[in-house]
């Protein structure tokens, strides 16, 4: 496959991530922060986000397994995750966090458990989609091309 085809795949995949709501405008803001002085900025930020995500989701899970459940503690983890997902443009993850916080406020354990499951699902989808996107990026760079960006 040549550079032009890799670039087309990259463009199409990124566009579909926006269309399906995985990403929002904040991801474009992240891309604008990347330049020759910080060429791997987006991957560095997203890698950090992946580590944070796994840590926070695990914390939420443990907090929900306590007896009794400390909903303020659960909410603290969800609040943090809402912030970091918003910062990287992970729209669907952020939206689940919003719903999750409402269930924490209502001290609704069943609702919280459902949200946790949804969060794990959305994070897993986002991660695999972003990893595919970065894989395409690597192919483009290996072939000497430039990464297409959405304006």
């Amino acid at each position, binding site marked *: 496959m040549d550079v032009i085809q890799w670039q087309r795949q990259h463009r199409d995949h990124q566009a579909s991530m926006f269309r399906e709501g995985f990403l929002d405008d*904040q991801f474009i*803001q*992240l891309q*604008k*922060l990347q*330049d020759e002085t*910080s060429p791997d*900025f987006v991957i*560095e*930020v997203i890698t*950090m*986000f992946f580590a*944070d995500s796994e840590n926070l989701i695990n914390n939420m899970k443990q907090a929900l397994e306590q007896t009794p459940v400390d909903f303020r503690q659960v909410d*603290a983890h969800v*609040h*943090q995750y*809402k*912030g*970091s997902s*918003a*910062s*990287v*443009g992970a729209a669907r993850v952020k939206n689940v966090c919003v719903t999750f916080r409402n269930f924490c406020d209502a001290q609704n354990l069943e609702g919280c458990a459902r949200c946790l499951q949804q969060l794990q699902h959305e994070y897993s989808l986002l991660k695999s989609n972003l990893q595919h996107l970065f894989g395409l990026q690597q192919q483009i760079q290996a072939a000497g091309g430039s990464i297409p960006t959405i304006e």
Partner: protein
Amino acid sequence: MEKERVQVMEAENKGKGLMAPEDLATKLTALVVDDDKLTRMLHQRLLNKAGVKNHAVENGKEAVDIHRSAQSFDMILMDKDMPIMNGIEATKKLRSMGIGSMIIGVSSSSKEEEIREFMEAGLNDYKVKPFTFTMLSSILDKINS
């Protein structure tokens, strides 16, 4: 966007004897106060791109301590929820120390009562995360004016 802003401001300021915006930006200093590493990374990158020299600390106590060591900053980006000392306490403390820097609260909270409490602690402004280039530009414009 930064280049466009500079061009517009240069055109407006031509012949008025005012400092060029890029000169002003590179003389400004900022302190990022946030317990989240990813947020610190993003905010520092934004400030770097805008030519603002910056430093980052992880909580309100470190922000207070750095000012006690006689360092000062033109602006402070202050998170609200942090361990050890939160943004509200830190802002109150800094103001009581006579720190007149522009303190911008930056948090993901959008609840009116929480924002009001934070503002009353002594903020100049409050921005809901994610903190963007547009928000930073408006703050730099305020400092410039």
